[in-house]
């Protein structure tokens, strides 16, 4: 009798991915194994499927720029901003700051490893910054819909800062934390990207995200709280 089929060959037969094998006609053990795999396949196929909720199709069809949580969009926005910032000296300093931070936000999100400490636990993220920054970063307990994803150290205009990546549903919010004097008082929102600045505990916070600025207020309150 020919050799038994390997486990891979058994699955290939069950999946119709193999040529017929002489061995299967003469070996009950292997035939049985293929049959078992086919039964599992059939059972899985027969499982009730998850049906999309009513209205989702319409939302998908209605889609366009309402939601902008796209790397492609961000890259396009960043490219436009980079051109604008590079070419037009008319931009005021605060607009430049917005552009740079939006660029940073885009670059970090597009990176394969956006954060160096990946944790939803603020008690992990907060101590991680100790010794890495010249100031302490207070990471509050975030209430839904916000959730902490992780953090890293970044440099902007020669200043070290903390970067916190925060999720809000499918959206990603970049929260930059710098020593207070490093950041302009106000930063304009840029090209549809909301940029919200606030100061608390002697630090400056800049949140950048593709959500309406008002949606970032709860985050501001959480970080400004003592």
């Amino acid at each position, binding site marked *: 009798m020919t050799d038994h089929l390997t486990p*891979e060959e058994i699955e290939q037969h069950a999946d119709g991915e193999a040529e017929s094998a002489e061995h299967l006609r003469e070996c009950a*053990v292997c035939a049985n194994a293929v049959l078992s795999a086919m039964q*599992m396949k059939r059972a899985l196929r027969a499982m*009730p499927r998850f049906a999309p909720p009513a209205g989702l199709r319409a939302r998908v069809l209605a889609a366009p720029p309402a*939601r902008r949580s796209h790397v*492609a*969009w961000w890259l396009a926005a960043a490219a436009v901003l980079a051109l604008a910032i590079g070419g037009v000296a008319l931009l005021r300093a605060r607009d430049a700051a917005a552009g740079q931070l939006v660029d940073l936000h885009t670059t970090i999100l597009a990176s394969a490893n956006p954060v160096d400490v990946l944790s939803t636990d603020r008690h992990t993220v907060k101590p991680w910054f100790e010794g890495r920054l010249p100031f302490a970063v207070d990471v509050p307990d975030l209430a839904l819909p916000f959730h902490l994803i992780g953090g890293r150290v970044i440099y902007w205009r020669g200043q070290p800062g903390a970067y916190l990546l925060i999720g809000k549903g*499918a959206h990603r919010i970049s929260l930059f934390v710098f020593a207070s004097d490093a950041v302009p008082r106000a930063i304009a929102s840029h090209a549809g990207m909301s940029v919200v600045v606030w100061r608390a505990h002697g630090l400056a916070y800049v949140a950048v995200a593709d959500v309406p600025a008002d949606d970032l207020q709860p985050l501001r309150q959480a970080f400004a709280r003592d």
Partner: protein
Amino acid sequence: MTRDSADPRAAFEELALPLFEPLYNYARWLTHDPIEAEDLVQETYLKGLRGFGSFAPGTNFRAWMYRILRNTFLTSRSGLRAVPPVSIDEDPDAYEQISVAETPESLFFARVDSETLRSSIEALPLTFREVLVLSDVENMSYREIAETLSIPIGTVTSRLVRARQKVRNTLRGER
């Protein structure tokens, strides 16, 4: 496939809308969560539409859309959690003992109810769950799975072996 350059959106929708229900089903298997699945599907269509210009006509559109959905999931919070820190494929010890001498009971799966089967698949690590769902629920060929997951066909096969083995073991343990 021809693409109407005057209206790429119409061309995209014509290809993408038939995938709406399968993509949602796949999203549910990845996320285990109806809300996240909904977000994921919406984002996938937006990314698909925006990136449609980079889709190479004549290549597999279904795999392309599934890949967008999966990559979007992997960069989400639950996706980051679901990804194993080390490659499972390269760990020889993780290869469970498989012997063809082990006799599978006939009609075994005929007696397993859908809920038990579903929970045993949901318990699988993402790496195995997705390959099993693409193959057996979404009916993709090995080649299509390989394209969707960007892995070699041999890896598809070995992951399927282990996925089915794990499901079998779980179901045996539960009886």
